[in-house]
């Protein structure tokens, strides 16, 4: 049943050397217009008494609101060297006030102050150096683990490797199919519109084939895998950090690098090129669909033109890039996961960071490789 709230009131009176504060009514979080300490503080500053006496003048209900008022009043009185007496207040309030003010010094620490801007620059530089060190350390460790893997000395569960291969290979086929088909279709559509102005829409097949095999197949597959698998690796390894699973491996004498990282890296490095070959075929199929359905090319014309425009060198370029992208995605995902701190938020940050790092690395390396292949005439 709804119970009306009696308005909280505070009556202040001076009795000799004492300031008497009488509290009445309901002191609840839900109460409106609760009296504040302002008037009491004015009185205390104007003519400091020896004692502040807080009395129960008819408190009907109370919660933390009343406790907060007393807590703040007590702090103020303590600063001014004034004694605070709350003897007639409800027992629960007095006990809670005592509890709130009985922090043992051993537990009381002061948080470090915010660093100044110069200190922040210094700290950021140190963080950057630390990150660079961790990256190089990770690459070194991973390289050694790969060598041990190929020598047959690495300790890992082959079953995990197969599961990871399945996870980042066959199970990624639907999304790779959809994206590649649409990208091929878009390439054909945009290209054919331009080429049609010169009556050269037959060359749309060349555009789609070369564009897909050398660039878009590998690039789109890599971006899908960065979002799908790279982030998952970071989240998995990050959660394992939080749950101390990685510590458990270390104490068993198992290298997390061999046991967790290398299988993930190998699975991705192996699967990205294979998925890229698949994406190339689907992309060209998408381009073919648009060309035949909209731009009046025959299937035979499209296939013939595609065959003439693409050779094995182009396929090699695409697959090589895909392998590089695979290394970059796997490294970013695993590195961020292994660097993850021990909180839920850190896991999210690791996953986000893995995707961002992967995509930036993919685009930058693609640009560099394209320039390199052009210079080499490949």
């Amino acid at each position, binding site marked *: 049943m709804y119970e009306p709230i009696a308005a909280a009131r505070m009556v202040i009176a001076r009795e000799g050397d004492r300031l008497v504060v009488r509290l009445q009514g309901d002191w609840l979080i839900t109460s409106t217009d609760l009296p504040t300490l302002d008037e009491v503080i004015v009185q205390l500053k104007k003519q400091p008494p020896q004692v502040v006496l807080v009395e129960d003048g008819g408190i009907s209900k109370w919660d933390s609101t009343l406790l907060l008022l007393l*807590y703040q009043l007590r702090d103020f009185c303590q600063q001014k060297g004034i004694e605070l007496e709350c003897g007639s207040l409800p027992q629960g309030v007095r*006990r809670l006030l005592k509890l709130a*003010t009985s*922090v043992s010094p051993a537990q009381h*620490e*002061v948080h470090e102050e915010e660093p100044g801007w110069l200190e922040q620059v210094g700290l950021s530089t140190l963080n950057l150096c630390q990150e660079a060190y961790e990256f190089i350390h990770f690459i070194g460790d991973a390289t050694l683990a790969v060598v041990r893997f190929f020598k047959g000395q690495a300790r890992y569960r082959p079953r995990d490797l197969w599961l990871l291969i399945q996870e980042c290979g066959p199970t990624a086929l639907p999304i790779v199919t959809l994206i590649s088909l649409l990208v091929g279709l878009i390439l054909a559509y945009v290209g054919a519109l331009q080429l049609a102005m010169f009556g050269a829409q037959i060359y749309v097949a060349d555009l789609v084939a070369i564009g897909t095999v050398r660039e878009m197949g590998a690039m789109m597959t890599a971006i899908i895998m960065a979002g799908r698998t790279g982030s998952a690796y970071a989240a998995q390894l990050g959660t394992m950090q939080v749950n101390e699973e990685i510590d458990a491996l270390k104490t068993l004498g198992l290298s997390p690098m061999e046991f967790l990282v290398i299988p993930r890296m190998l699975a991705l490095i192996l699967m990205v090129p294979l998925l890229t070959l698949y994406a190339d075929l689907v992309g060209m199929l998408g381009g073919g669909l648009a060309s035949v359905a909209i731009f009046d090319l025959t299937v035979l014309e499209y296939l013939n033109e595609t065959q003439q425009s693409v050779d094995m060198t182009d396929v090699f370029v695409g697959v090589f890039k895909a392998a590089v992208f695979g290394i970059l995605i796997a490294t970013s995902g695993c590195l961020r996961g292994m660097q993850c701190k021990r*909180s*839920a938020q850190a896991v999210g940050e690791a996953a986000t960071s893995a995707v961002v790092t992967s995509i930036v690395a993919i685009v930058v390396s693609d640009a560099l490789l394209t320039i390199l292949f052009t210079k080499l005439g490949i």
Partner: protein
Amino acid sequence: MAEPHIIVRDLTMAYGDRIIQKDLNFSISRGDIFIIMGGSGCGKSTLLRHLIGLIRPAKGQVIYGDIDFWAAEPGIRTQILRRVGVLYQSGALWSSMTLAENVSLPLGEYSNLEPAKIAALASLKLALVGLKGFEDYYPFEISGGMQKRAGLARAIAMDPDILFFDEPSAGLDPISAKHLDDLIVELRDSLGATVVIVTHELPSIMAIGTNSVFLDAESKTMIGQGPPKQLLAAPPNPKVHEFLTRGGTL
């Protein structure tokens, strides 16, 4: 006798077809420190999750005052839950927030107080659990015991009528566990709250429990009920005796 605050009537808990506990009948009086005890895997934490509205019972009722929780409108259920504070086993603090922000969140959501007052109340709650000065710390910067106390500060943020604790002493050293027990009793006495604790820590059970229920994993129902000291003196079942005497070693 104090009025019943929570009544559990014919409660059956199940995950799909798998029954965890059945035919649970007991009541928790206002001001009780009520212990839910039993061996590992008997369904203690599951019962707690049924009591705090996280899992719907397969059968039976959980009655708060005179309101059947699961038969009530969602709005009424939310109102009931606002009067409840829960301390989870791990503290369950939100890792992206400071301790003060963790405590402030329910105050900001469910009161019309201005931000400065919410911040002051959050500091007060942290001071109540001995964490004065730790307002700006993140959960990962403090120890497990401190995380539990910060979780308790969040649980009492809204001055709840009922406080639920899931294994409060788990993972704490005996002295910290004793301090936490003392704090629970102090908060019960000061706030006038009802306290429900899931635990199998015998020292805590005997030190602070005023009433209890004993769940058995084998028979999948309760096999003991009453004040823990009374159950120890006159065990209603050999399993209860074995549990309360640590396999007969006490």
